[in-house]
């Protein structure tokens, strides 16, 4: 889909290798596993926890021109929903082509209902979502 997924933790690349080799859940992993032992990249995205030296669960989507389109940060112990990540990513791809439209919360994929914000929609979002 023209995207590169990179996972990042403050572990080194050597630990990533050992984890990938040991953990059966990671058997199919093909994405690059980024090492940020200094926390430099984690700080850039505001997810570095100074107390523990660990990165919080943050997801960031950057467009091909380098703009930050999405950011989601969860506190410890809350896992992320990959379907929601994919929904956001697809919506970003869609909106990169059609900047004058809006993807409402229930938008899932190309062909789903979008909105065109404008004066005629003021106070009529409910109606706009119906047709």
């Amino acid at each position, binding site marked *: *889909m*023209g*995207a*590169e*997924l*990179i*996972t*990042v*933790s*403050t*572990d080194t*690349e*050597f*630990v*990533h*290798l*050992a*984890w990938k080799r*040991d*953990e059966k859940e*990671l058997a199919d*992993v*093909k*994405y*690059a*596993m*980024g*090492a940020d032992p200094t926390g*430099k*990249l984690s*700080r*850039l*995205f*505001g997810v570095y*926890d100074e107390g*523990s030296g*660990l*990165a*919080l*669960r*943050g*997801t*960031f*989507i*950057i*467009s*091909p*021109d*380098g*703009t*930050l*389109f*999405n*950011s989601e940060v969860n506190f410890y112990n809350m*896992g*992320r929903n990959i379907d929601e*990540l994919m929904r956001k*990513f697809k919506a*970003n*791809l869609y909106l990169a082509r059609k900047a004058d439209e809006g993807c409402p919360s229930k938008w899932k994929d190309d062909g789903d209902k979008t909105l065109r914000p404008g004066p005629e929609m003021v106070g009529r979002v409910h109606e706009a979502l119906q047709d």
Partner: protein
Amino acid sequence: MSDEITTAKIGQQVPDFELTVYEPENHGFGSRNLADLKKAGKWTILFFYPADFTFV
């Protein structure tokens, strides 16, 4: 006092970064940087998590 730590913000340009990575497909180490990903016309998804050997 100057604050050297800048934080990426929604709708703004992300400063260039470089990262050492483990590449499972090549069974080796490599690197990624935002400038190259942009040159390749790719979207970049960064997925941070606290630590290996835990759930992500």
